[in-house]
């Protein structure tokens, strides 16, 4: 608006539209209906939160070593504490727990080193984590060398088994998925057809069927007397299954890279593999980090399905725990504990992926 003496000076915002009170007014108490809904929502939250807090913290039992300690009426965390070794290590012999602990300690150390910018030679650490570490971890878990006694895979279980299955699944399915995605985009008809058939076959089958086939049907087709490890078969099943999903996620990323990038790489004289590994894949994988992590999270939770072929992952050991005579009836505590553990791992992966996206952002708009 034009006035005789030029425009009016800016007014400060009214006090009731700024700060906490302003925010409350705008978002929670904007109208009568809005206010009513706010109070209704608060009441519903109150109804849910109070008993939950009472059950988890106020009326719960934390100390003791048998079900007799659970008398307060709330959650009985004594059950979890008493069976924690089963949940973490399955039926792994107790004198070998240090081997599992050491294997995971090394892994955590490597992952921490990889995420500190100042650490020199992170490329070598990454290579060691992917190539050297699995060998060390295998000997720590399985034994049979360096004076370690052999612990058969049917004794493996609990959270450590869940982590092994998902770790192997994650590490193996990404590169296989990348190769399949490149294959599906290939100009060579046989490579392309083979990739499509593979991807569509594994994506079309439920994981539970894959695991069942690997454990029950596969031995029927193998010559008599040959047996190979049930855990290994489950791992192969999971890896092939997840690779197919990963391939499609990566293909989405490849499709999002402008044609000009391929052309610029070609024009500079880079051959197919160099332009893929140096130019296209770094960009494509960065674009689909959310999709990749999504698949990882799904994989992590899908590993619970190995219970149908008799492997004792975290969830199955917890179920076994509350089905034991001395702890009958503590299913809720068990499931809440399982949910918490799964949530911690999945949420960490999700946060890590967001962190990674931010770190890799180089300021280009798409």
């Amino acid at each position, binding site marked *: 608006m034009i006035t005789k003496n030029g425009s009016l000076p800016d007014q400060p915002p009214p006090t009731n539209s700024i700060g906490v009170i302003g925010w409350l007014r705008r978002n929670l108490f904007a109208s009568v209906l809005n206010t009513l809904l706010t109070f209704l929502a608060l009441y519903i939250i109150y109804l849910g939160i109070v008993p939950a807090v009472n059950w988890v913290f106020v009326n719960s039992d934390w100390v003791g070593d048998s079900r007799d300690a659970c008398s307060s009426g709330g959650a009985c965390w004594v059950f979890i504490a008493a069976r924690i070794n089963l949940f973490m290590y399955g039926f792994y012999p107790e004198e070998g727990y240090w081997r599992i602990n050491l294997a995971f300690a090394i892994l955590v150390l490597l992952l921490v080193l990889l995420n500190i910018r100042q650490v020199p030679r992170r490329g070598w650490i990454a290579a060691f984590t992917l190539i050297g570490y699995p060998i060390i971890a295998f000997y720590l878990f399985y034994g049979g060398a360096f004076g370690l006694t052999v612990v058969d895979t049917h004794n493996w279980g609990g959270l450590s088994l869940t982590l092994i299955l998902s770790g192997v699944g994650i590490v193996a399915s990404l590169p296989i998925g990348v190769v399949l995605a490149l294959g599906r985009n290939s100009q060579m008809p046989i490579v392309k057809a083979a990739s499509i058939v593979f991807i569509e076959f594994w994506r079309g089958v439920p994981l539970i069927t894959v695991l069942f086939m690997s454990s029950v049907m596969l031995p029927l087709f193998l010559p008599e007397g040959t047996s190979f490890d049930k855990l290994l078969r489950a791992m192969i099943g999971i890896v092939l299954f997840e690779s197919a999903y990963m391939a499609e996620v990566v293909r989405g990323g490849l499709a999002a890279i402008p044609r000009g990038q391929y*052309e610029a790489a070609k024009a500079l004289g880079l051959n197919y593999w160099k332009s893929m590994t140096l130019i296209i894949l770094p960009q494509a994988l*960065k674009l689909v980090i959310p999709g990749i992590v999504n698949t990882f999270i799904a994989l992590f939770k899908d590993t619970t399905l190995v219970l149908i072929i008799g492997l004792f992952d975290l969830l199955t050991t917890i179920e076994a725990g509350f089905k034991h005579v001395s702890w009958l009836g503590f299913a809720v505590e068990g499931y809440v504990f399982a949910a918490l553990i799964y949530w911690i791992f999945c949420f960490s992966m999700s946060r890590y992926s967001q962190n990674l996206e931010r770190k890799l952002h180089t300021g280009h708009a798409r």
Partner: protein
Amino acid sequence: MTIETANPELTASSAPIIEIVGMHKWYGEFHVLKEINLTVSRGERIVICGPSGSGKSTMIRCINRLEEHQRGQIIVDGIELNDDLKRIDKIRREVGMVFQHFNLFPHLTVLENCCLAPIWVRKMPRKQAEEIAMEYLERVRIPEQAKKYPGQLSGGQQQRVAIARSLCMSPSIMLFDEPTSALDPEMIKEVLDTMISLAESGMTMLVVTHEMGFAKTVANRVIFMDGGQIIEENDPETFFTNPEHERTQLFLSQIM
């Protein structure tokens, strides 16, 4: 149809570095390039113009095999292009290309963009590649941006980086595919200046552009294309003041 080169003493001065003989190209049923004949000698600067869809970009993209031709011959620096990947790679090492949309690699810094091909294609040690890259970045007058990512630069700066990136491979031919068409007006000049100084250094250049001022001052020869054919080929003065062909006259009257 073939058209005699208007400036025979220029082409006769040295051996041809590019020879295109009776080249045709189809996209499926669509006949994009028809009977292209073109001889370029070392050090020549050729501007190719024409209405959109006339096949000018497609033609220069055939020279480094970003597009394949279906009939005729393309001989670059004595090597005839065919399906042989080794030959294609050899030619691509000798032919630099600058694109309309720069096509810098957004995940790499400016310096890394420039060093990538020398390191991975020419097997140059990293240190030497970086020195050469800095030299060329200085030549296009943006050495101070070396550590930045392409996304942090203006369009004109990005295009100059793209030129430096191509030069790092020390090519004997440079192809420019509408290098200024995606730029804001005030950035066109900085890119054209870079190209002019490159021309002065004796580089063989094929430039698809609508910058007629550039054509007038820099080109040895201007080629006009329409409907997938070379309609007219002449030295810039004759081309602009006295075009032979009706379609050329029409085109020039529309853009000038």
